[in-house]
């Protein structure tokens, strides 16, 4: 049985990766994903609670066997210190999006109402547009985007998934 690149029964997995904050380490990680032909959906990176250690959240499409390789290949990078698959842990998973939507006087009220239902916020208003900030699961962000689409989305930016295990058992806590 061939193990590599087995795309049947693959699923979305969320990995938390801790790494030393050295020059080039981010491109090293993303380079590795590209070169080994792994299928990543999103990748976010920022500081962790420890200075000098960055924390990355990666969403990857992989079967169990490919995922095992992804984790090992991450560990193989000299400055990666900890990799945790939190897909099956109880985790808080969030994404933030900024959406600038076409808004004229007749549609403003309706948009405001929708934004309230989603517990999102209007953070800027211009003469023909409104900018909305939403934080939530990716599904929630997806739904708001779809609902706003008919009004005309002029600009959209999403951060990708960030995650933390409930009760402090995430990659950070274990590391």
């Amino acid at each position: 049985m061939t193990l590599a690149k087995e795309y049947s029964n693959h699923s979305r997995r969320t990995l938390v990766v801790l790494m030393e904050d050295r020059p080039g380490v981010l491109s090293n990680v993303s380079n590795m994903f590209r070169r080994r032909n792994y299928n990543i959906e999103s990748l976010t990176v920022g500081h962790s609670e420890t200075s000098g250690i960055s924390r990355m959240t990666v969403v990857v499409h992989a079967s169990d066997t490919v995922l095992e390789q992804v984790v090992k290949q991450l560990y193989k990078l000299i400055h990666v210190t900890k990799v945790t698959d939190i897909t099956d842990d109880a985790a808080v998973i969030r994404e933030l999006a900024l959406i600038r939507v076409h808004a004229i006087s007749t549609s403003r009220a309706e948009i405001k109402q929708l934004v309230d239902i989603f517990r999102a916020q209007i953070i800027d208003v211009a003469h023909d547009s409104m900018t909305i900030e939403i934080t939530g699961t990716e599904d929630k962000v997806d739904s708001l985007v779809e609902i706003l689409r008919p009004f005309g989305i002029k600009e959209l930016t999403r951060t990708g998934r960030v995650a933390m295990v409930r009760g402090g058992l995430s990659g950070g806590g274990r590391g």
Partner: protein
Amino acid sequence: MKMNGAQIIWECLVREGVDVVFGITGGKVIPLYHELPAYPIHHITMRHEQAAAHAADGYARATGKVGVCVATSGPGATNLVTGIANAQMDSSPIVAITGQVASGDLGTDAFQEVDITGITMPITKHNCLVTNVTELAQAIREAFHIARSGHPGAVLVDVTVDAQMGQCEFIYPETVNLPGYRPHTRGNLRQVAQAAEMINQAKRPVLMVGRGVIVAGAQDELVELAERAQIPVATTLLGKSAIPESHPLSLGMGGMHGEAYTNLAVQQADLIIGIGTRFDDRFTSAASTFAPQAKIIHIDIDPAEIAKRVRVDLPIVGDALNVLRELVPLVQNAQHTEWIGLIDGWRAEAREYSRHWEEGEALVPQYVVRQISELTEGDALMVSDVGQNQMWEAQYYIHNRFGGLISSGGLGTMGFALPASIGAQVGRPECVVWVVAGDGGLQMTIQELATIVQERLPVKIALLNNGYLGMVRQWQEFFYERNYCGTPIFGPDFAKVAEAYGMAGITVCDKAQVNEALEQAMQIDGPVLIDFRIEQEHNVFPMVPAGRPIDEMIRRPRQA
């Protein structure tokens, strides 16, 4: 003590035990070279940076120490790339030091600026750019530690010219602090016990050995394991010379050009014990067809190699020497008489396939290699190039010296052998070093004959000259209707070329002249090139067509 960056680099190299480096100078390493004469390090000036990297690689493989190469920024650095990739693929520990434009000029497309850390990121185990003299000592220390430990590999340190010239207090970092890098060297004892259990139960076991056993220096332990339980040993190309090949349990190389009996043994085994190998596709062919009846134990220092290509029933992550030391005492004595009898039957049958060239008149490469093997009693340090010549070397030289074969396996880099032999001979002056190369590959780095002569290295070169890029021609013959597009190659009079460089050159056109030429070469106290004008359209057999199971090989023709 205050030192400049260049002095710090050499000082660190001396402390790492480096006494030779291979390189070519240039604008952005002049400060580095300026300080070199004060240090007990011999610099070998190569004729091309690719060759410098191959020489460092050959040196590393021949000695087990880290090989070092040096190049200037820009084209010097890019010329190293093939050599770095080659070393990395074959787990050969090298450190490449490159000069870089001044830190203030970085990113401006300055003269001879190239992002060599970016370029080599996917082909190094680790690399870094040093722009500040205060970070140099730590960077060099880490480079050597990473190159030689765990799964060995290539490391590149790019040093800006201002970091080479800047001054700081030199403090040698006694330790390295790499929290993300902790190689596993000791196997899990529960898994080792399980492995012993599986070996004790096996009826048709085969050891499959790669270069990891040579890197670990585990020859005695390997032979002990094989003998204790009477387990035949197949090797990968790079695993050749891990066990003396005249040992009755040695099956030689398996895989695409492995002997039929070796591949049959692997395919019919009920247990494969892979040690220090990455189950490369040149051995296994399509992973789904590999050793279908066998359970697989995989012992390797690199967890990422486990189950990368083939399924594994029992993984053991650890250094081959440590694991074998734990494993051998747990393995029971066994005979496997029936199994070994079966394999020996296949082996005897294979002999029938070589009679015709042994008895025939033609100057065939098999004969040349076999004669070199006999003349040197299998004890030479052989450095082979890539192509048919490499396979003939692997099939007909009987390696009895541990670690006695140096070849480009993973990358298959034509032009590797000649420069690698420079490193090998420099590192092992007491050894007889022979190069086996083809006319195509030799011409890719032939300029290094000058380095050989300049350094007075007594390297002996056997050129298997067939007038073709032979291995590709063979594929065209078998699978592309003999459409020899791009494979016929003109070559110079190589003996004259050798002489022009200041070394001995001999041309051999007849089988009857082979022994005399070889003996003459051995007697000459210096480098020699022998141009063997072999049969032009000779093929490498057996051959497993791409993707087929390895026991479905095209056998040797029984007559010429």
